């Protein structure tokens, strides 16, 4: 197997919140015991309903917020114990692009300044930085005449390219993309997706792509992780997850995912019932049990363990206990 870039073992991130005017203390278990490995050069997709903790996971990975429990291991280095030199290396090697193109760039900075800023911070001279900025714009297939524009003068697709260009200037090894296309039109989305794939291939990058669009995931990723209410419920190769989902939630998700072919519309489909729960009021036992068609009493009381099936396919459901081994 190829080498792991990012390793998470039972990672947790809880937020303390106050509920209501009574200020009752409670925890939001936004990331609750996620175990995940991202290998070099692969594209991992992360899907899940809104509020399931995807962005939080990304923020923990980026060390923007401290995990409540466990830690992120990057290239073998435990980030919670990293020296400032290691940290600096981490900062150059991992880059991020967020969902909303407009909020990705400082509205008061020119494109040029925005792109040059990381390089200047890491001690690259202005002249070289400028050249690199022009080069990186070229890389994302944009004209360098945009360098002196302000974000509000550009379209969403252009902004997203610039955000990607900036992420690239420090020659990162890993890119975390939090919903990079969901705010874009279809025609622009295709451009960005292609661009990302091209870059990955030519530069040998590793991606963690967060999205709720299963069609995008299917198109872009090698492996898919599915989150539900802070827990990783399934993780495995894309093809397998799309065609043969194991976890009942993944099953429902796949079924609900919009088809892009009207001829499939009359196929009998399994429609998942109920609303996604809220992280504030978590169900007992398996978080999914209130919506699960297969739930047993056990699901109500006990939390299922992560089960590793063949092919590195992970699933967190009692149904598969017989087939795999607990991690």
């Amino acid at each position, binding site marked *: 197997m190829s080498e792991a870039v990012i390793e998470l073992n039972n990672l947790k991130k809880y937020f303390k919140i106050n509920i209501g005017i009574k200020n009752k203390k409670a925890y939001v278990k936004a990331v609750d015991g996620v175990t995940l490995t991202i290998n070099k050069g692969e594209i991992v997709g992360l899907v899940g*309903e*809104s509020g399931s903790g995807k962005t939080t996971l990304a923020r923990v990975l980026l060390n923007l917020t401290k995990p409540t429990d466990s830690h992120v291991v990057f290239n073998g280095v435990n980030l919670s114990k990293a020296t400032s030199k290691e940290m600096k290396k981490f900062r150059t090697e991992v880059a991020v692009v967020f969902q909303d193109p407009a909020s990705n760039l400082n509205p008061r900075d020119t494109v040029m300044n925005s792109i040059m800023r990381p390089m200047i911070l890491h001690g690259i001279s202005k002249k070289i930085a400028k050249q690199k900025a022009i080069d990186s714009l070229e890389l994302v297939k944009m004209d360098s005449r945009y360098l002196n524009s302000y974000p509000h003068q550009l*379209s969403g*697709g*252009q902004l997203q390219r610039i955000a990607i260009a900036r992420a690239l200037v420090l020659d990162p090894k890993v890119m975390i993309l939090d919903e990079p296309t969901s705010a874009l*039109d*279809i*025609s622009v*989305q*295709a*451009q960005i*997706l*292609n661009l990302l*794939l091209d870059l990955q291939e030519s530069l040998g990058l590793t991606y963690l792509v967060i999205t*709720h*669009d*299963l*069609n*995008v995931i*299917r*198109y*872009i990723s090698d492996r898919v992780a599915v989150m539900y209410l802070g827990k990783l419920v399934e993780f495995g190769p*894309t*093809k397998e997850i799309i065609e043969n989902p194991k976890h009942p939630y993944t099953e*429902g*998700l796949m*079924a*609900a*995912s*919009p*088809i*892009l*072919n*009207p*001829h*499939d*519309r009359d196929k009998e*489909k399994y*429609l*998942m*019932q109920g*609303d*996604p729960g809220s992280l504030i009021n978590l169900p007992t036992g398996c978080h999914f049990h209130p919506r699960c068609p297969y739930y047993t009493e056990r699901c109500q009381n006990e939390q299922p363990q992560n089960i590793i099936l063949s092919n590195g396919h992970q699933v967190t459901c009692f149904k598969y206990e017989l087939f795999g081994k607990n991690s």
Partner: protein
Amino acid sequence: MSEELLKLNKLYVDYKVKEGYLSAVKKVSFSINKGEIFAIVGESGCGKSTIAHSILRLLPEHNEIIKGNIFFNGEDLHEYTDKQLESIRGREIGMIFQNPLDSLNPVYTTGFQVAEGIMLDNVSKQEAWNRVINLYNDVKMPDAEKRAKSFPHELSGGMRQRVMIAMMLSRTPQLLIADEPTTALDVTIEAQILNIIKTLRDEYNTAVMLITHNFGLVAEVADKVAVMYAGEVVEQGTVFDIFDNPKHPYTKLLMKSLPRKAKSEGRLQTINGSVPRLTENKPGCRFENRCPYVMDICKIKDTERRIVTESHFFNCHLEKGGE
């Protein structure tokens, strides 16, 4: 089934803006038959909501100029007074919006807000309330009685959208305009809502004008589809016409840019360039700057309607569309 309910005839909508006029909708004509789900798709800003709002004269800022005709059951809504239009709204045509939280008044219970519409038909309070509970059951609202007494913020996004649907179907209108009804919702909830719309259409024979930018939705539920680009309808046909046999270069390219496959099967098609500003009302095809088949005439002359089949047409100077 093929009775014509709503017909737009050469509808133009111009917004008055700082620089002059913004032509948000240009020469749009189509018709919706009773009981059919008619989808309008297009990328953001292409004028979909504008069409929807101008039908019921609900454009918020009162800074628009509407030209053309809107026939509803053969009557020109354009000639209706505000008062007459009030009797159309809700009773003949219902309308639901993208974000169901914004669309409900936070200080009243959801049940009251639904009942409020029902009571316009001189229905007693009690009777209205009973109807509300029934409607809630119709839209598969769990725990209908309790939910009717809840305030909007106490409900989840999906439930709020159910309230909106119940509200707008409460007076059994003939047409339901749904402006991106599921964009703010998760896919699993989206599927549930779509299912409800479909069932209710079957039950009440309500026509639905579904506005969306999500081709997945269109493929899932629409009977007919109008594809819009920059204020114009570029192609219209049955859902199968559009997906299987797109004619207009824009539609064609768009279909190929949908992520329908995996990366191993090859890259997606892309459309270069960007949408033009719609400020000046100059003639010509609005897709001209991005079209791979562009000709000189495209820049100076408005497009022509090319009929493919009875139900399928597109607007282009190319007789056969992009091949």
